[in-house]
């Protein structure tokens, strides 16, 4: 779900970079306001590396397999470090594997990073509920994972379809393309949601402290 180089007009890429710079600047300002801003850096960096590696795990969806995105969980675990972490992860992905691109780094960071921040708030919503209820928790975890990826897919498809340099594409074809792409991503949402809630159950059981954010 990364947009490669060469597809988007330069104005969209520039807009993506502007938005990314603004969000990154805000995140770093928030980090620096902490009592000891350096304390979170090793944690955020190693978790960035870990999420990067976890995204190599293939989930079998016959006849093919999909990769995990997990930007929702990343948002929940990293808080204000999430957006810089995603930016760094995308940079490494573009450079090491040619996955995504350099000119589209900004726009891809928006696609992945904004939903991560959204998921962070969904996870926090859960804490408002006073009673301990594993089922309700699970539902929130599923929601956070699925919504994060869902929003990413929506932004991705939206940007792609509205910005293809096709001057003559018909409205009907455009709608068809949107529907096809959205439906093709539906199983991904289910899997992301399921894995996210399974993962959170695991983390809560094994290392509860990790869920309190950096």
């Amino acid at each position: 779900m990364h947009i490669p180089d060469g597809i988007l007009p330069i104005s969209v890429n520039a807009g993506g970079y502007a938005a990314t710079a603004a969000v990154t600047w805000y995140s770093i300002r928030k980090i620096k306001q902490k009592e000891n801003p350096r304390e979170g850096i090793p944690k955020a960096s190693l978790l960035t590396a870990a999420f990067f590696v976890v995204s190599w795990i293939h989930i079998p969806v016959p006849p093919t397999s999909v990769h995990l995105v997990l930007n929702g969980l990343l948002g929940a675990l990293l808080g204000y470090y999430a957006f810089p972490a995603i930016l760094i992860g995308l940079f490494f992905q573009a450079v090491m594997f040619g996955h995504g691109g350099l000119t589209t780094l900004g726009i891809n960071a928006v696609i992945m990073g904004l939903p991560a921040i959204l998921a962070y708030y969904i996870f926090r919503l859960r804490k408002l509920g006073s009673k301990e209820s594993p089922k309700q928790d699970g539902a929130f975890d599923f929601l956070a994972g699925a919504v994060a990826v869902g929003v990413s897919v929506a932004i991705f498809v939206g940007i792609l379809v509205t910005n293809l340099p096709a001057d003559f594409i018909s409205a009907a074809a455009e709608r068809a393309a949107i529907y096809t792409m959205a439906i093709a991503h539906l199983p991904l949402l289910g899997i992301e949601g399921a894995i996210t809630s399974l993962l959170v159950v695991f983390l809560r059981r094994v290392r509860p402290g990790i869920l309190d954010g950096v």
Partner: protein
Amino acid sequence: MRESDITLLAEEMVEPALSVSGLCFSYPDRPNVLNNITLTVMPGERVGLIGPNGAGKTTFFLSLCGVLKPSAGEVVLLGKSVVNGDFRPDVALVFQNPDDQLFCPSVWDDVAFGPQNTGLSKDEVEKRVSEALATVEGTELAERPVHHLSEGEKRIISVAGVLAMHPRLIIYDEPGANLDIRSRRRLIRLLQCSTETILVASHDLELILEVCNRVVLMDGGGIVADGDPRRVMGNAELMEAHGQEKPHSLLPHQVSHQYPCRPTIARNA
């Protein structure tokens, strides 16, 4: 019929647990990590594998299990040729770092992971797990999260996870690393009492000396010595030529440290 023929015949009647012939292996960026290794292990043997870092011990083990595909040669395990990528429940490998092997949330889940994958019934799985935990004296750890165990406990549980699959050949890759003396002693006792054919790689020569009845010295991807542990490891010249030392206990006298195999009763002895 000459005498040597008779021995030959007798050996052929018992099928070897493991027979490797002309095994070679190269990593994409590192050629000839294993050079033409030939080795036969009979059932019930406890073979120690020693050699410096980078000798190829781990690579050898991974080729035996079919995880790595050899560039030449053949491996026959328990009478059946090993095919790359095939799953062989009768052969098990204990990894050097228990963290590579333990990933389930609880000890019980982890020990049950292998048996569940072989498609056993629920009761059967449960029986296997409690048996394996009892063997390693870890029954009371069952409900604990794996990630909170001490190094020694982790090691013991990773062995239980392997025992629960009822393998006939168990390969231990440096099982003694990071253990304190009490856990190491417990591990040695466990190895001494095991009835399976075992292969153990270790830098802890005293451990090899206490556990194994045969030792193989590897260096540079080949086997350079093979025989009785006291003879091979007692050969100071040979050992030093391959970056090893004669174990302390072989130096002036031989002191036996063999503990009696006791049935599993108390852990906190």
